[in-house]
């Protein structure tokens, strides 16, 4: 049996491969006809080969379940997702623009606070945010850049247009899986690469290294760069280790570091050795027990002061998370106009702020049609998907919104686009999102594509790997 694109049906959703029964979109034509040239059994064999490769390559993520940490193989669907280069170039300009504006905003919040004086956003909204760090006021990191690494979640609606769903500015993860997905696809479908003009993704670790070198406090030919991980039990440990390996950087835990005279050192077999740049994968509050969470054993005492004194660079800077907040998100299009004097290239998903009386009323009246999100959760937790919620859940959320309106915003349920996945018996459409990674220091960079996450369950919108989501290789293809 072979794939039948005539019976493949994504219903009212925008499918990225098939435009109408039997017809593939232009950039996906080669892929669609290649998939048709294989029997379903052959495709399943390729799937098995991919799973084996993932297992032996040790591409894993850690989940906490039944009181223990389990290292799980990375969930991957072998059919790649195809995006036209022209469309991507436009999108990537929008992503760079967005991060520039976000950095202007963060810098402004911690320095001049012009935006409050100009009454574009209420001051209280920021100062009461759980991600605002008063300790960071008055600090000027190099290039005025706070968020050096951003994972921006994009979705397409029923027309196929890209919207920004959220900006992850704290410790966004997933880039290593983007890189490994490509490596696996090359093993599984080497034939496909012959006729396609696919943008490579492999340069990311070099770009990351260059960006981190650029923010080194003292310009050096070989600054000492380390990746700071919470340790082997963290769900993204694989990625921490992977990026350290690809950059030739040391992977350190808090216990490997020590601060002396406001300088950061790591404990090596040669004794103490000074560190210039820390790519930290630990949340702000755990970075330094002498300033933030006193209980933290993940960080290192004195680190914050060393950063304030300019003796070590931190990426992302502490406090950068102030812009990683579902409420602040709604203001980003205005930030772009205000700080850059430009029109936003990428639209936001329309949003309602519960702190605003009129908008809150609308949300409460339409809860069963909306998606409600708390300001500060990530990983898809604490969300309400109105159309799929029970009456009890709707009531519960109405209560929560009234109790703490600052903490909630709502959006219409976007009809996420679909792409085909390989099921056990047939190829079927499933919903996807896309997380490109954006870097900024002396210059900006966007990955070619990003990490595509796919909801493996029919009809589901939940793409998070911690909740049963899968992933796909993402191809940015030029005209061949």
């Amino acid at each position, binding site marked *: 049996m072979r794939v039948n694109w005539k019976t493949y049906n994504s219903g009212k959703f925008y499918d990225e491969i098939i435009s109408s029964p039997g017809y593939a979109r232009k950039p996906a034509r080669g892929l669609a006809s290649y998939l048709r040239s294989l029997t379903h059994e052959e495709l399943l064999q390729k799937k098995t080969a991919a799973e084996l490769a993932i*297992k*032996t*390559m*040790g591409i894993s993520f850690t989940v906490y379940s039944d009181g223990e940490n389990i*290292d799980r193989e990375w969930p991957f669907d072998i059919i790649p997702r195809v995006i036209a280069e022209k469309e991507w170039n436009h999108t990537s300009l929008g992503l760079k623009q967005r991060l520039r504006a976000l950095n202007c905003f963060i810098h402004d919040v911690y320095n001049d606070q012009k935006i409050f004086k100009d009454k574009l956003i209420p001051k209280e909204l920021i100062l009461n945010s759980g991600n605002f760090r008063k300790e960071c006021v008055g600090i000027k990191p190099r290039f005025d850049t706070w968020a050096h690494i951003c994972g921006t979640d994009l979705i397409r609606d029923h027309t196929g247009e890209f919207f920004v769903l959220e900006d992850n500015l704290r410790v966004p993860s997933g880039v290593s899986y983007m890189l490994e997905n490509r490596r696996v696809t090359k093993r599984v479908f080497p034939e496909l690469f012959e006729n396609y003009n696919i943008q490579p993704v492999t340069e990311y670790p070099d770009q990351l290294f260059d960006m981190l070198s650029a923010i080194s406090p003292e310009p050096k030919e070989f600054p000492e760069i380390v*990746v700071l991980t919470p340790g*082997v039990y963290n769900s993204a440990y694989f990625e921490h*280790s*992977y990026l*350290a*390996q690809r950059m030739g*950087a*040391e*992977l*350190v*835990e808090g*216990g*490997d570091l*020590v601060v002396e005279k406001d300088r950061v050192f*790591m*404990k*090596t*077999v*040669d*004794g*103490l050795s000074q560190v210039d740049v820390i790519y930290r994968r630990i949340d702000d509050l755990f970075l330094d027990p002498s300033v933030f969470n006193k209980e933290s054993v993940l960080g290192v005492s004195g680190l914050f002061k060393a950063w304030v004194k300019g003796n070590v660079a931190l990426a992302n800077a502490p406090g950068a998370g102030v812009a990683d907040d579902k409420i602040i998100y709604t203001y980003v299009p205005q930030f772009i106009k205000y700080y850059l004097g430009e029109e936003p290239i990428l639209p936001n998903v329309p949003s309602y702020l519960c702190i605003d009386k009129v908008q809150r009323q609308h949300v409460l009246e339409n809860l069963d049609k909306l998606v409600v999100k708390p300001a500060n959760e990530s990983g898809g937790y604490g969300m309400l998907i109105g159309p799929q919620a029970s009456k009890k859940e709707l009531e519960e959320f109405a209560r929560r919104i009234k109790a703490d309106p600052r903490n909630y915003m709502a959006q219409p349920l976007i009809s996420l686009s679909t792409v085909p996945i390989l099921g056990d018996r047939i190829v079927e459409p499933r919903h996807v999102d896309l997380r490109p990674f954006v870097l900024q220091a002396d210059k900006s960079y966007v990955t070619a594509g990003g990490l595509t996450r796919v909801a493996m369950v029919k009809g589901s919108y939940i793409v998070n790997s911690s909740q049963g989501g899968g992933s796909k290789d993402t191809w940015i293809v030029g005209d061949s």
Partner: protein
Amino acid sequence: MLSRVAERVYWQARYLERAENTARLLNVFSTLLLDLPTGTKLGWRSLVEITGGEEAFDARYKQAVERSVVKFLLAENNGSSILDMLAHTRENARTTREIMPSEAFEKINELYYFAKENASSGISRGPRHELLEAIISSCQQISGLMAGTMSRGAAYSFVRLGRSLERADMTTRIVDVGSFNLLSSISKSKDQAAADEPYDNILWMNVLRSQSAYQMYRQHVKHRVNGEDVVTFLLRDEEFPRSVTHNLITITKVLHKLPNQEKVSKQVEKTLRIVGRGKLGKLMDEGLLEYIDDLQLEIASVHKKVADTWFLPNK
């Protein structure tokens, strides 16, 4: 190089070497069985003793027979089995992926899964040989891969340090057990001992084989296989890569590349002096046990100095 990472790399190498050595021992013992007259009892328990797992073993089994010992050393989660050694190897490799060649991790990972899926098949005699051979050759492939791809910097020095110390340690254990338990557990009485004499050679040959030393011994020692020469070869030969002396010399060479190694070097030199002390022929009649005990303590002391110098500082 980070102290914590150095420690993990060192243990990864030790566990990998220990897994390989345990597989060799099991393999040789299983073959040795076939050479002995029916009715002779083979001292399976000595295998447990070599690996230092007596306590865990006694907690699980009443009798040290082929099945229980093989199961214990191959496929159980008890801290002494090949499966556990490989799990430790993998965990140490997984947590040092940033500095090890990625192919090395992939091979270690593959080997671990292979062992996990197949280890229990080796409890029965039939498939055992093939299984153990596969494990041994994978271990060697991994060592070869590291030798062929890693720069001779600190990381590789810790790999060699771990591997050499583990080999030296394991060889003393094998000699220890080979010269006492193995023989005494087979001979039941004095009369029996005389009758068993032809099998002494077979035993010593297998002691050599467990270290892949038989051919090299034949080429370098002109005498026929006998206890004294075998023990001398395994302890004191400078050229044979599994002998205690050779491994201690290797460690001396590796140490030159590492910082602050003075205390470790002194301890290794002391250990080398102890290996070379006394005539083995005489020792075999009396005092070999004490001699080996001393040696093992000194080797343990080398490990302690290594840990004090590079793993624990700044803690």
